[in-house]
């Protein structure tokens, strides 16, 4: 495939791997966090860890929108789907997420709820147009990448005069989550999570640009390299981070220049600002309440807000006690450190969020990396 195979070239990968091996200082360790699930997926799927020296450790961050959505919101969606005559439209990833009692949207569908998998928010608008007698709710999730399409859907529904279309908004913001991790006691004071640098988001950055990361680089003195989701992008970003660390620099660099501008996509940003506003606080699975980390629909568009129309309550459901997803999402632990990883918690019966989506750290390890008997990098939480 043109423009794709070029970024998966094995020979070029070996050359970058050789550069990484020669430039990584053997006297020190490099702990690099890839924030995005897309990067986690690429690292696992292409076996990138096999190409890295033992002292370069990848830490999987919380950038999987399916993984960080709190169980309470999934429960809300299931309750919505059970309203007779209501059609709930959701991205495929969300359907399998289990709640505390093992229920999921897929199971609710099997029991008769009208749950439809859609590929885009536009599909949900189309379903609303075709079913004027039914309430249609779009279960909107995701980071800054999927937010503009949701804004478009709301504007479209308004233009079409659809009174049966609403959005259950769960959009979250990347920079707030990164700040939260960097400000956590484990990273800042206790030094339990050595974090030397970040691989910055790919698709998210096409929307928000590279500027929002300047703050982390400056404030926390951590280098950030924005990288695409192809495996060569990830390799190149690792090399760029190692160079920055070796030279004592903490800058925002952009490996993904073919798609990311410093200012991002202004049109998309304006659209989002028109339809959404900040929530004072929002619960993230694994991170807890994170201030100003999510969006809600502005009162001007309240007619399209499912939370308003259906009076959706705030439900907070704690994760299973044995589950280490919280620590894994913060980079404190690795999947293999969790007692229930691969035993009670598997992709068939996911207990924690990281096992649900293939972008989750646990599912990626389980599905792609189980042949590694010894974890590549382990960290202990005291």
């Amino acid at each position, binding site marked *: 495939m043109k423009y794709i195979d070029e970024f998966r070239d094995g020979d070029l990968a070996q050359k970058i791997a050789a550069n990484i091996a020669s430039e990584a200082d053997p006297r020190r360790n490099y702990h690099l966090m890839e924030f995005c699930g897309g990067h986690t997926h690429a690292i*696992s799927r*292409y*076996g990138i860890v096999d*190409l890295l020296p033992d002292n370069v450790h990848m830490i999987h961050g919380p950038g999987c929108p399916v993984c960080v959505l709190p169980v309470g919101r999934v429960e809300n969606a299931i309750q919505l789907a059970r309203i007779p005559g209501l059609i709930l439209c959701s991205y*495929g990833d969300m359907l399998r997420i289990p709640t505390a009692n093992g229920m999921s949207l897929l199971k609710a569908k099997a029991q008769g709820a009208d749950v439809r998998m859609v590929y885009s928010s536009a599909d949900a608008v189309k379903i609303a147009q075709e079913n004027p007698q039914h309430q249609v709710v779009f279960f909107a999730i995701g980071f800054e990448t999927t937010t503009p399409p949701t804004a478009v859907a709301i504007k479209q529904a308004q233009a079409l005069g659809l009174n049966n279309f609403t959005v259950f908004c769960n959009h979250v913001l990347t920079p707030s989550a990164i700040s939260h991790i960097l400000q956590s006691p484990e990273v800042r004071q206790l030094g339990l999570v050595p974090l030397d640098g970040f691989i910055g988001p790919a698709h998210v950055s096409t929307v928000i640009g590279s500027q929002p990361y300047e703050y982390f680089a400056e404030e926390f003195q951590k280098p950030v390299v924005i990288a695409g989701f192809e495996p060569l992008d990830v390799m190149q970003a690792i090399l760029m981070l190692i160079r920055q660390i070796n030279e004592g620099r903490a800058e925002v660099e952009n490996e993904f220049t073919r798609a990311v501008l410093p200012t991002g996509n202004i049109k998309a940003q304006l659209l989002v600002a028109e339809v959404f506003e900040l929530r004072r606080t929002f619960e993230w699975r694994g991170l807890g309440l994170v201030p100003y980390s999510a969006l809600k629909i502005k009162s001007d568009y309240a007619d399209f807000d499912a939370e308003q129309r259906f009076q959706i309550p705030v439900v907070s459901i704690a994760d299973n006690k044995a589950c280490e997803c919280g620590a894994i999402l913060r980079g404190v632990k690795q999947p293999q450190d969790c007692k229930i990883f691969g035993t009670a918690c598997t*992709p068939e019966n996911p207990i924690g969020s990281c096992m649900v989506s293939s972008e989750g750290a646990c599912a990626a390890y389980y*599905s*792609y990396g*189980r*042949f590694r008997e010894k974890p590549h990098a382990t960290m202990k939480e005291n």
Partner: protein
Amino acid sequence: MSSAGKIRPGYTRSLDLKNGCVEMAHGSGGRAMAQLIDQLFLAAFDNEFLRKMNDQACFQSFNGRMAMSTDSHVVTPLFFPGGNIGSLSVHGTINDIAMSGAKPCYLAASFILEEGFPLADLKRIVDSMAQAAQAAQVPIVTGDTKVVEKGSGDGVFITTTGIGTVPDGINISGENARPGDKILVSGTLGDHGIAILSLRENLSFHTSIQSDTAALHDLVACMIAVAPNIHVLRDPTRGGIATTLNEIALQSSVGMMLYENKLPIREPVSAACEFLGLDPLYIANEGKLVAICAPADAGKLLRAMQVHPLGENAALIGEVIEDTHCFVQMQTRFGGKRVVDWLSGEQLPRIC
């Protein structure tokens, strides 16, 4: 077919195969059912066994081992590029029989029809079954028809059952893979699944990909002729090649190592998988087989496959290794390794 012989033809009007629909009466054992069987099924499948109009087919028994298999078909949509549920139901069971190395001899076909289903569509399906059976030289010798109320089915469900004879000295089974064996595949992967997906209501994208639905028994016969000691044969249908290899790994208590750069995958299939967030290794095939054989047989087996029209893209894709975990792994094109795991649940597209 069942009960057909009890009623003499004397229909006032012939079956309206253009505009008519399946009615409850077509399954109730009366004159309407006899007419449907006579004018549709018998007319299409015509052979000496069906013509006897008994509830069963009687044939001479065979010496030696026999193979038997059954397969239900519930595909949506019923018609797709490269075939339909009819041809699929014939090929599916023939292939299940053939994967034991057996020569398929006879088929039985059972139909569950939904009230209101257009007879014109049913005729297309039945005709395509008849063509597939004739091309494969495996007659449909007995069958059954039931009708369910509208809303209780999805148009047509077809179950086919087959019986075949295993040549002497052939012992092909999923438990026979040994470390060191080579893994071969008969052609490009994922064609059927992508052809079907491209028509699904909420996806509908344009692709030139056709379903690969085909009967593989002739290919198998050619393979056995050059390498009678093939260890394992299996057709990677639902769940794709990843699932098939995981099944075999578990049955044989071995591991497997695939080479990503050797996998034959058409570009439109990889492209569709790329934008749908799917993995071609988990996409269904309906006219492909996986063969596992001793290293000494691999070369001649591959050549025999490649000269057959259904095996021209055959490739050696990996080897069997020792592994107590029975993992299927893949050497990626990128230079790393990863596990090719069982599919969990349905393959769902990723969000970003």
